[in-house]
């Protein structure tokens, strides 16, 4: 390669213009407003067909990109856009599209359960929990952790025990893979206990113990103690009921 000519061969006007252009460009960008994402700007999600077309045969890569795109609507420079300001119908469609493109992805449901479902807005919280429930039913053995989190939210945030029970029962009935921990499948019994449906809770815990699925000695001991406590509470409740009748 030939050596370059000396710097002195460059006319001063060119150097001046280069410096001016660089300074003007930086000044222009610095003077502009900081980029921001407004919650109401979230557009409707394209159809699954259009997204597949746009993925050029690599839907997983597009799905990952779309999640980052959604994330850009949650945050803006300096301050967070409150999640409750997002249009939840559109948000759900976007999350569903991402899951259609990449069914093995956990990020959309993680975001749904840990971010979007924790807004201080009952109706939006409930709609996001229902979204998680519907998506769980499509792949229970992989998506149970997010419905388990949804169960906890329904119980502790919404204080809606029947809803929590519904989710817990879904986990118990549909998440049947070996890797699903027993605590997740036993959630229904403990929610029933909180609902004072002691007899049903007792039957479910007794059923677990008898099924032989529980092999861990510590877990087995815990369940047996729980069962005894339930039986004691049932007897106590029964005694009170008889006294009040007499």
């Amino acid at each position, binding site marked *: 390669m*030939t*050596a*370059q*000519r*000396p*710097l002195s*061969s*460059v*006319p001063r006007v*060119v*150097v001046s*213009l*280069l410096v*001016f*252009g*660089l300074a*003007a*460009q*930086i000044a*222009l*960008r*610095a003077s*502009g407003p*900081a*980029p*921001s*994402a407004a919650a109401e700007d979230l557009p409707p999600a394209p159809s699954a067909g259009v997204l597949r077309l746009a993925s050029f045969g690599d839907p997983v890569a597009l799905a990952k990109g779309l999640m*980052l*795109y959604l*994330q*850009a609507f949650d*945050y*803006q*420079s*300096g301050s*967070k856009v409150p999640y409750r300001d997002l249009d939840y119908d559109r948000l759900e469609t976007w999350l569903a599209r991402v899951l259609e493109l990449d069914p093995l992805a956990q990020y959309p449901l993680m975001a749904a359960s840990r971010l979007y479902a924790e807004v201080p807005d009952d109706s939006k919280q409930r709609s996001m929990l229902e979204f998680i429930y519907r998506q769980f039913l499509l792949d229970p053995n992989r998506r149970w952790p997010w419905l388990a989190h949804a169960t906890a939210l329904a119980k502790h945030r919404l204080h809606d025990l029947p809803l929590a029970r519904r989710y817990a029962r879904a986990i118990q009935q549909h998440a049947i893979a070996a890797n699903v921990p027993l605590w997740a499948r036993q959630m229904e019994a403990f929610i029933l206990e909180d609902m004072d449906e002691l007899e049903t809770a007792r039957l479910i815990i007794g059923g677990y113990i008898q099924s032989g699925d529980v092999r861990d000695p510590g877990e087995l001991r815990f369940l047996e103690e729980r069962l005894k406590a339930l039986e004691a509470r049932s007897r106590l409740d029964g005694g009170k009921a008889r006294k009040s009748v007499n």
Partner: protein
Amino acid sequence: MSIVASIARTTVVEAVRNRLLWLTVAVVVLAFGLAQFLAQVAIAETMEIQAALLAAPLRVAAVFIVAVFVITSMVRESNDKITELLLSLPAPRSAYFFGKFAGYASVALIVALLCALPLAFLAKPSGLALWGASLVCELLIVTAMSLFCVLTLAQVVPAFAAVAGFYLLSRSMTAMQIIAAAPLHEPTLADRIVKTIVESIAFLLPALDGMTQTAWLLGGVSLGFASAVFGQTAIYLVLLCSAALFDLYRRNF
């Protein structure tokens, strides 16, 4: 005729003889047909859907055509020793540069007009005028960037890769800034470094993501958009042309 005008004229003639304009017409016809086809399935906002489906691919195609033409034309000229011949003329190197830039800019203008033509049936005139003018500005920046890259890198593949990277980065920079500005967790040192790097890069790139918006074709146009587009184009052209001239003056042929 001055050397600048002569070089510009030969560059336009080269584009015509390379059937570049026919290629553009073919792309426009193809995109128009595709938009018509896709609009058949729309049950509402048919015109808007057609305009959007036509404008977005045409913009990308125009950028691709102009960048590839500038780069391959300059490399071919260099390989045929025509560059050396032109530089041996009794004129400053800047005359050669501005002659080439004027020629390529004329080609870019024609390509932009051809791309805007089918949208005349679908979009509002004010929106189309701004969209077309913005496309010309965008293509001028791409032309100057292609010239700068090919004069510096002198090869087709590295030059085109650099232009493509520049274009894609410029178009997605705002989204990257938003993501970098607010990490999910409490910002760590690494997050702050990434944010600083992203913001530094953003300062050096043109705001292409604010140019040639499909939304303008569907309404919602203001003069503010036009001044932002023209201001950014003028400043970036000064920067790119002076950077390319800097390299051209230092280069030994």
